[in-house]
């Protein structure tokens, strides 16, 4: 508690962990490369330097606020320092901004403009290093790395993976996996959180835009889009739409204009997941084996479990993820249509399923062997929110100006339970709604207040299902998953159901979402998802009439084949 004088103005502070937070709270956006409030303080970029009343210069991120401090944030000396830092970074940086994946969203680019860098006096004598394009999810370009270490700390502290670290020293320093292995040769799960924090183009999303444009232009193809829950609360980011606002209607309009034939809702796929996963939970509770049941919606988590905790492989739900259930269903429907058309001797278009996802790991998920039917991929392409934003922009469409349109039927109808799959705790809540089976407001509230909502890394809850008390853990961030798995392994904790999402707060902060994803953005998206649920007339997946009709129709007798992995 106390006051700091910042640029001759008194600013109160309470429990801020460093001077930088106090400065930012006062409305001054001090630049940083290496500071993220959720990560440990690294203090390497030196952009947040401030000067005190005795002329001492220090990094505000690494200084605890003290009552009576007097600091200045923009003196000529500080300006000189910051410009020099940028100039030195640029000296050894690839400067092909126009062709960079982060063009327009790069912090280095932004700060060099902001600080008025018009020339770089130093020669770039850095050797060009090869790119790592081995991963299905992200591309690593060491030539664009500024060594801020954000990816290193995210991978280690948030995800508990530690795939990336610094190697070598001084001017030879680089960020790389051990022995400079390709990412595909490591335990990388493709969550893309490194990309979400990378301030430059050193880590970017593996792009699938080109083949999707080609499919859209191909008259012999029927291109279907499915939109994941977390996409709709983030897609407006680059169009000046309020953070967290539901843009689903406008997205549907935009996707039709760029050539998608049908636009559906992955929330419908999530409704199917709820049906299957709750059934599976009941079966396992009944039989008492393979408990706890782990959710399988998050491909980064599934891969993590396979890599690091193979002994728990059997606990992962056999359910496919929502996008894959939906993809398998759409392809099955297309096969039946094709058969009918062939019997009539008519031509039929080839169906291409494109998932619009907040997630980079989904790009790898669709290539897993279990997601092929008769040699063909159930989902053909995954585009992240960032990629679809680019496509909409490329087509000259301003999402903000579009009139919202409804999705196509029948698979455009989904419950609120499907919508909340986009945040941590959502899958659990959706399954519990199904199992308690009541859409009375008090019952829904009772479920939402069990402790499964919120942003904590590990949440625990208990709920009575008939005679039995079901013990639940809801986990977000793989580092937290590691803690929970170790506790289960050691016999210190016992659960019946464990939901894991690899990314903090769930898919709304996924690795494919528009950046920057600061605390305010996360909060707005988080609330946006629950807002969608609040506005849904149907709260329970089993009350979605389309779900009932597909179980009676296309899914009949094929539930296991289409919706489960063996």
């Amino acid at each position, binding site marked *: 508690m106390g006051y700091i004088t910042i640029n001759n103005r008194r600013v109160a502070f309470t429990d801020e962990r460093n001077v930088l937070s106090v400065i930012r709270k006062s409305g001054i956006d001090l630049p940083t490369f290496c500071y993220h409030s959720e990560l440990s303080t690294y203090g390497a970029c030196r952009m947040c330097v401030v000067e005190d009343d005795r002329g001492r210069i220090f990094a505000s991120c690494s200084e605890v606020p003290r009552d009576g401090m007097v600091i200045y944030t923009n003196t000529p000396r500080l300006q000189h320092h910051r410009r020099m830092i940028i100039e030195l970074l640029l000296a050894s940086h690839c400067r092909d901004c126009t062709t960079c994946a982060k063009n327009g969203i790069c912090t280095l680019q932004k700060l060099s403009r902001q600080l008025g860098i018009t020339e770089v006096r130093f020669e770039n004598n850095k050797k060009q290093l090869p790119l790592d394009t081995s991963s299905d999810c992200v591309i690593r370009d060491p030539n664009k790395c500024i060594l801020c270490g954000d990816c290193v700390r995210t991978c280690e502290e948030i995800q508990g993976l*530690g795939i990336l*670290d610094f*190697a070598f020293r001084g001017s030879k320093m680089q960020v790389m*996996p*051990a*022995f400079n292995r390709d990412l595909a040769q490591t335990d990388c799960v493709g969550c893309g959180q490194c990309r979400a924090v990378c301030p430059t183009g050193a880590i970017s999303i593996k792009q699938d835009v080109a083949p999707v444009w080609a499919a859209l232009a191909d008259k012999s193809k029927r291109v279907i889009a499915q939109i994941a829950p977390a996409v709709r609360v983030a897609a407006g980011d680059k169009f000046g739409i309020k953070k967290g606002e539901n843009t689903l209607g406008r997205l549907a309009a935009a996707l039709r204009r760029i050539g998608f034939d049908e636009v559906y809702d992955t929330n419908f796929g999530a409704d199917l997941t709820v049906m299957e996963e709750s059934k599976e939970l009941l079966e396992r509770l009944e039989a008492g084996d393979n408990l706890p049941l782990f959710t399988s919606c998050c491909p980064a988590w599934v891969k993590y479990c396979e890599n690091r905790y193979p002994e728990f492989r059997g606990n992962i739900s056999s359910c496919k993820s929502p996008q894959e259930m939906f993809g398998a269903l759409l392809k099955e429907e297309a096969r039946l249509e094709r058969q009918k058309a062939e019997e009539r001797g008519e031509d039929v278009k080839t169906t291409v399923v494109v998932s619009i996802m907040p997630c980079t790991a989904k790009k790898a998920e669709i290539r897993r062997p279990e997601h092929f039917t008769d040699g063909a991929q159930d989902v053909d392409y995954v585009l992240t929110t960032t990629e679809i934003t680019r496509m909409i922009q490329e087509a000259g469409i301003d999402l903000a100006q579009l009139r919202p349109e409804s999705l196509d039927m029948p698979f455009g109808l989904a419950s609120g339970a499907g919508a909340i799959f986009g945040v941590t705790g959502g899958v659990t809540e959706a399954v519990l709604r199904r199992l308690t089976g009541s859409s009375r407001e008090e019952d829904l509230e009772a479920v939402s207040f069990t402790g499964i909502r919120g942003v904590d890394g590990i949440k625990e809850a208990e709920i009575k299902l008939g005679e039995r008390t079901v013990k639940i853990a809801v986990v977000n961030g793989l580092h937290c998953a590691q803690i929970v798995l170790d506790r289960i392994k050691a016999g210190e904790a016992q659960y019946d159901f464990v939901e894991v999402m690899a990314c903090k707060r769930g898919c709304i902060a996924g690795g494919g979402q528009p950046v920057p994803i600061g605390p305010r953005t996360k909060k707005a998206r988080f609330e946006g998802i629950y807002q969608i649920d609040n506005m849904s007339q149907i709260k329970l997946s089993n009350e979605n009439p389309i779900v009932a009709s597909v179980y009676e129709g296309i899914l009949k007798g094929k539930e296991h084949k289409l919706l489960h992995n063996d």
Partner: protein
Amino acid sequence: MLEQTYYDKADEVIAEHGSDQAALIPIIQDIQTEYRYLPPELLTYVAEKLGINEAKAYSVATFYENFSFEPKGKYIIKVCDGTACHVRKSIPILERLYSELGLSAEKATTDDMMFTLETVSCLGACGLAPVLTVNDKVYPAMTPDAAAELIRELRGA
């Protein structure tokens, strides 16, 4: 994959230092002393035993010039190129050794695995400049000819 004896040796070294994470550097130093280099497989192995991320262990091992993932020769020659040795003409010694051994700045070890030639920034023996060491034995006041003679002796030995 290395032979089992390597892993047994690593286990022995780990047992000696304990599997505390702080013991990483002394452990890999001892392994390097044993094999005259740090086999990459053993770094991975030690990291796992100590519960350190492999990338973090690699980070430590590459930070220090001293660790080498390449097998080194029987004789490791370190030519000092610190300020004192440099002004007393260490470079001609180095160049003579390069030509005697058929080595270069890029190729540090002879094909017969007899010699590895490195430069160091100071050996702390400036009064004896220009100086070089062979397997940590110091040879003072060297000249290109003396260095060539030394190589002949070592080859004969």
